[in-house]
């Protein structure tokens, strides 16, 4: 884990360092010929200037020398704006307006604004340049040309001073309190889902074979601690026990959340995800009785002694708290799973709430049994082993869900199929009904099991044929059938994957005469995956993309080769798509940055020249 942070940290050391404005833009003035002044702004590496922010002004309107015209070099389109990638080569023709002789000083106000394509936009810069010219050589033609000439017809915004003025506005500080935060989480709705599901899990946990038989025993112990046994008192004592147990679990949940908060980044790396998925698989094995996971006996007995020493309400509370630590073999694995999950969210508040509701759920049967002194109690039996198995299957499900973030959709689908088949067979999909009557519970379960089996098999079969949508596992067969009728047109072009600018240059050279689409991708970029799954897989988009040469640049390594792209094409990072025309020239105005829905990309592709 430390290695990971070091790796992240070292990346910042390789981060781009930006030029100071005075290195980025080096304006200079020179005399081109007898009545022409030249202003050049030498641009540093990766620097470009906005044409509409470039402004040239006669600084002294009364010096007798006026600007007749201002010309500048050719700008190019870049990200939808006209920019200069090299010096704008401003040329000012000057004329004499009054009788002047000998050397005269000409002052020019210059303002400009630009950005580094490596990802920084400089503040507007203002400067005054001076040059001495020989007035004897100037034309003396009177002119009515305006002396302020903007670089572009577009109105130029007034340039703000670099130092912001002290405004005396005092904004009332708006405080976002912790309660606001909780409120927003609740409004989000998801918190209820979490509460309900954890409550449900708690309830289920208490119905597992190694917890349930304990309930009457625990309740009798609780009731023995408080001597008089009225129904009301019995309820209160049981409640104290349950709440104390909940406190212990809540602490565990909060701790897991806090601990996880510092490991957020680490949880996103493929090998950590893989390790956790494996942990879930191992935990699930415990639910299938492959081994027993529980707190060692000597610790258990010591804790139970601690709790049992005191009498009355306090004794019951202590028992409740410590009994949470005596985790039985059925509870240990799901609890570990829940804690790992909380750790992943890194949210202490959520962790506390989740584990609290979990323990309340676990306490409900205890409350009922305790209050009714065991009059009301479901019959333990085989069904409890089924509850335990459900947890095992759930843990496996989580493992697959987690590893799905690392594996491709198709492999994940196969894993789901495998799980479904295992479940189906284990609940008796293929077992003979024997003497079980029609419409008996056994028969119904078999029917259910058979459906799960069918679904699982279709996932496996579809998965092997390349399906990736679990809702339509048999899609590949349907497609290939219609494809066969509509001829081989359904096979689409795929991206040629590259990692260096040299490779791209070679592809561009090879494909002269064809338009090229270059997609920038990285494993760590979620919107890139969205592009792949939603947009590039859209049939209409595919058809349109078939008209282009498709190249995909993988920037996952984030190394020098990857950074070379950023520099060369002025993209900050993935996702981005560049388009090159038939002559191999980049179509700057067509560049896409960020995710686009299939429709948007389709329109964009259709709009290409």
């Amino acid at each position, binding site marked *: 884990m430390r290695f990971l942070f070091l790796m992240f940290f070292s990346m910042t050391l390789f981060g781009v360092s*930006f030029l100071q*404005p005075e290195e980025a833009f080096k304006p200079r003035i020179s005399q081109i010929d007898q009545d022409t002044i030249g202003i050049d702004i030498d641009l540093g590496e990766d620097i470009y200037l906005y044409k509409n922010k470039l402004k040239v002004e006669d600084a002294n309107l009364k010096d007798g020398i006026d600007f007749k015209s201002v010309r500048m070099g050719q700008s190019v389109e870049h990200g939808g704006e006209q920019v200069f990638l090299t010096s704008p080569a401003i040329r000012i023709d000057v004329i004499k307006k009054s009788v002047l002789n000998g050397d005269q000083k000409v002052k020019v106000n210059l303002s400009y604004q630009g950005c580094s394509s490596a990802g920084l936009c400089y*503040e507007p810069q203002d400067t005054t340049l001076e040059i001495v010219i020989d007035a004897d050589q100037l034309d003396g033609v009177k002119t009515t040309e305006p002396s302020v000439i903007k670089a572009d017809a577009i109105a130029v915004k007034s340039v703000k001073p670099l130092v912001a003025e002290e405004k005396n506005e005092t904004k009332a500080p708006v405080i976002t309190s912790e309660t606001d935060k909780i409120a927003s989480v609740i409004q989000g709705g998801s918190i209820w889902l979490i509460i309900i599901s954890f409550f449900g899990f708690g309830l289920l946990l208490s119905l597992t074979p190694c917890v349930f038989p304990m309930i009457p025993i625990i309740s009798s112990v609780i009731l023995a601690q408080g001597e008089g046994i009225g129904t009301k008192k019995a309820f209160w004592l049981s409640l104290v026990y349950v709440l104390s147990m909940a406190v212990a679990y809540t602490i565990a949940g909060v701790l897991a959340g806090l601990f996880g908060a510092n490991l957020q980044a680490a949880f996103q790396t493929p090998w950590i995800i893989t390790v956790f998925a494996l942990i879930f698989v191992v935990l699930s094995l415990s639910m299938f009785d492959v081994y027993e996971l529980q707190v060692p006996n000597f610790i258990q007995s010591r804790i139970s002694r601690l709790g049992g020493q005191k009498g009355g309400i306090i004794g019951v509370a202590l028992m409740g708290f410590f009994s949470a630590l005596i985790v039985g073999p059925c509870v240990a694995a799901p609890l570990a799973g829940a804690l790992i999950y909380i750790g992943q969210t890194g949210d202490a508040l959520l962790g506390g709430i989740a584990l609290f509701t979990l323990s309340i759920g676990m306490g409900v049967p205890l409350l009922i049994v305790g209050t009714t002194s065991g009059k009301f109690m479901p019959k333990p039996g085989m069904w409890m082993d089924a509850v335990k198995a459900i947890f095992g299957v759930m843990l496996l499900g989580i493992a697959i869900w987690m590893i799905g973030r690392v594996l491709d959709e198709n492999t994940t689908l196969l894993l789901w199929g495998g799980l479904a088949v295992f479940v189906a067979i284990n609940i008796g999909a293929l077992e003979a009904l024997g003497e079980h009557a029609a419409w008996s519970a056994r028969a119904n379960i078999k029917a259910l099991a058979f459906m799960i089996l069918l679904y699982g098999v279709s996932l496996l079969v579809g998965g092997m044929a390349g399906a990736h949508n679990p809702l339509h596992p048999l899609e590949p067969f349907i497609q290939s059938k219609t494809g066969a009728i509509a001829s081989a047109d359904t096979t689409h072009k795929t991206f040629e994957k590259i990692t260096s600018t040299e490779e791209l240059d070679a592809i561009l050279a090879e494909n002269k005469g064809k338009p090229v689409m270059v997609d920038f991708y990285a494993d760590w970029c979620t919107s890139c995956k969205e592009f792949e799954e939603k947009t590039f897989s859209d049939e209409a988009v595919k058809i349109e993309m078939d008209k282009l040469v498709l190249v995909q640049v993988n920037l996952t390594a*984030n190394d020098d080769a990857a950074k070379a792209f950023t520099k060369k094409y002025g993209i900050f990072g993935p996702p981005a798509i560049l388009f090159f025309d038939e002559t191999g020239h980049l179509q700057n105005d067509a560049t896409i940055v960020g995710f686009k829905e299939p429709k948007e990309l389709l329109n964009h592709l259709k709009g290409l020249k």
Partner: protein
Amino acid sequence: MSKVLWALTLIASCALAEIKWAPSYDAALVSAKQEKKNVMVMLSKEGCPACDYMENVVFEERVIEDAITKGFIPVHIDVHTDKVPSGLGFIGTPTFHFLNASGEKLKRHDGGANIPTFMGILNSVKKP
């Protein structure tokens, strides 16, 4: 069914993290003190492609959202329309300043960064 519920729970919790920008620099300092977090100031302006990239791509990334939500009170300052707090220097936008709740500067980063690089920056800021 419970399997599906679990998955739903897990997915739902992902939606909890969305970057909530503080309404002002002062408010950010107050919240930072309350929530024992650092403050992340983003200086930006109109017409700055790198700022847009940060907003539309990097801050949309779950890892980044989570890291910011967990460790920072983020606040946005437009260098042309808002008052830039004194001491927060910049040669251009975006510029990121990381400060503790008392307003002491911890780190400055000039310019945009892609997801792993920005993650590295966030991680290198000393925890409160």
